[in-house]
């Protein structure tokens, strides 16, 4: 069981997972997003290799309208 915070919200997963799996679980596959894990950018190419750990804080962002 790991607990992580994604975009300010706590989430629990029954076993450790990598960023690609997380993206899929959040139904964000195929969407253009960027991910920051504990303050560091995780490039999209590294998603399958980057394992998440208990206590990780993630920001997942997208482009929206703005001036």
């Amino acid at each position, binding site marked *: 069981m790991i607990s992580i915070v*994604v*975009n*300010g*919200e706590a989430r629990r997963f029954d076993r450790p997972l990598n960023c690609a799996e997380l993206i899929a679980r*959040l*139904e*964000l596959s195929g*969407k*253009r*997003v*960027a*991910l*920051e894990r504990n*303050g560091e*950018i995780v*490039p*999209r190419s590294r998603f399958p290799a980057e394992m998440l750990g208990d206590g990780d804080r993630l*920001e*997942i*962002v*997208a*482009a*929206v*309208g*703005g*001036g």
Partner: protein
Amino acid sequence: MKPHENLDALVIAGKSYASRLLVGTGKYQDFAQTKAAVEASGAQIVTVAIRRTNIGQNTGAPSLLDYLPPSKYTLLPNTAGCYTADDAVRTLRLARELLDGHDLVKLEVLGDPRSLYPNVVDTLGAARTLVKEGFKVMVYTSDDPIIAKELEAIGCVAVMPLASLIGSGMGILNPWNLEIIIQHATVPVLVDAGVGTASDAAIALELGCDGVLMNTAIAAAKDPVLMASAMRKAVEAGRDAYLAGRMPKKPYAASPSSPTTGLIGKP
């Protein structure tokens, strides 16, 4: 196409753009209107904001970039809503990753949520960090000529002084400061923030600005698509007027345009 048009491109960080009008994508009623307005404006550079993605809601819903694809537009991520240099830097690092390594960015660090006036001290700090990390920074700032020059010295690729407060539509409040900035700049100067209507944009270009960035002026007009088209013309007209070299202002030397001799009824 006018003969000199190809030679009068806006050049930012070594890349040429035919349009000197840059537009934002916020405050529209929907993506379709955003797209229609952007198209009517003729803008090639379009700003976007970077925000936490919605999770678990409307997973099939289209996104902004479906309407304004990176293949067609130069997307300029901004740091709207950032009040510290750290937040701005973090946001733009995410933006660069989001946009496949594209590193032309708009930096803004705000100082006050009511006036949205820039915090130029934190802006300078963020600019130093971002330039060191290889970003090409177009920086939103006040109309302080010394700060503008310092931002240029740091390595920003364009300086973007405000005309007036973001979203205020008050137009250019201090054309004299803008002139000083323009005279001393060796990078493009674009007015960003406060444009309200077409004449504001024309004046900016007449003063010698290289371009104008606007959002609310178009999105909050009663007919945004029509205003976008007006802005396109205004920017072109202002630029042509600037290149044409206006007549001097002569407050005390009125000079008629018609002959002063041969008037009937004279002795």
